[in-house]
């Protein structure tokens, strides 16, 4: 039984990852990260691949898309598409939460 308290990181825009860290976090190669940027599924800051850094909020979508594409034997272009759909779902879910919070239950 392991009871040590580990170091924790919030996976949001404030946590920045290099290409190497993103690839490792998502179980994909650096080449695939580069392809995903070319397909427009990931938008790092920095102009050259050596300078790229990514907001950690994308890790969840990329991991999920990588799992799906690995298990369903899909190409990287499909992975890019899955990532953009997942990001869209994520935004819409946040919007639903916001609207629900603001609209309220309509009475005590």
């Amino acid at each position, binding site marked *: 039984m392991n009871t040590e308290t580990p170091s*924790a990181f919030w996976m949001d825009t404030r946590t920045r990852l290099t290409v190497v860290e993103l690839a490792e976090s998502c179980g994909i190669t650096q080449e695939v990260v580069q392809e995903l940027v070319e397909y427009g599924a990931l938008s790092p800051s920095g102009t050259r691949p050596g300078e790229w850094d990514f907001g950690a909020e994308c890790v969840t979508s990329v991991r999920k898309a990588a799992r799906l594409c690995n298990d369903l034997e899909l190409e990287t272009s499909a992975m890019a598409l899955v990532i953009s759909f997942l990001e869209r779902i994520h935004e819409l879910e946040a919007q639903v939460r916001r609207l629900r919070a*603001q609209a309220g239950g309509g009475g*005590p």
Partner: protein
Amino acid sequence: MKYKDYYAILGVARDASADDIRKAYRKLAQKYHPDVTKDPQGEEKFKEVAEAYQTLKDAEKRKAYDELGSGFASGQEFRPPPGWEQRFGEAPNEGRFSFDDADLSDLFESLSRGRRGTSRGPRKMRGEDFEVAVQLTLEQALHGTQVDLRLALPEYDEQGAVRAVEKTIKARIPKGATDGQRLRLRGQGGKGLNGGPNGDLYLDITLRPHPLFRVDGHDLYLDLPLAPWEAALGAAVEIPTLDGTVSLKIPEGTGAGRKLRLAGKGLPRPEGAPGDLYAVAQIVNPTVLTERERELYRALADASRFDPRGHFAKGSP
């Protein structure tokens, strides 16, 4: 060892082509993949389907599987034919292969391990990452908390065979959590193999619905019922926050739906100022009026020239 009918699992004939097998697998994988399915048994079914495909998609493994024959029922105990123990136990550094505690998939897996040539020495492998859903109360998100996660994590022995080991991880969740946020705990996932680093643990955080507060990011919303006269005349009311009640001044002429902001009374952010609490005004009428209340309302109706629907005639609000 228990027999599994891989062809039946994929729903294909024993003489199906490699292409048919791939198509059948993809169709089932799309249906049961844990990342897409809503079927509670989806993950289990996906594992079965993937195991069947891993064996049948590989010509050599499929041939070996076919040699077992088709005379077994799924789940039936069986022993592979004589000579197989040597065949699957001969890979270098594998040790002696015993059928007694092996799974059918281990048998075929050992074929590809032998092929990969483990004689070059054990390879360092990073442990697997795990994703776990955690539900917190608003109070836990406010103060930060420690949760006990009981996980059945796979571990690999020296032979590379996998078994589930129950492990309790105390995960410290710092304050700053909110709905839909994810936390990464470095090194708390699966054990690395042959000195490789451990995997990570990802916590997928949701907040348990609260009877009073609704959550938007780090802001909170509270419905604030007001009597018509409180809304009309203004008032000072006590309202609950996550850390005790505060007094809130209701301005004169507050309309339904108006948001009154209490700065910094929302959830704390990981960095920077905390979120805000919004009290959303609702005008609530008494359901039963006393005779005196009725008289006063009538007097108000007679005296007031207020027309809440004046804009109807003008065609705009």
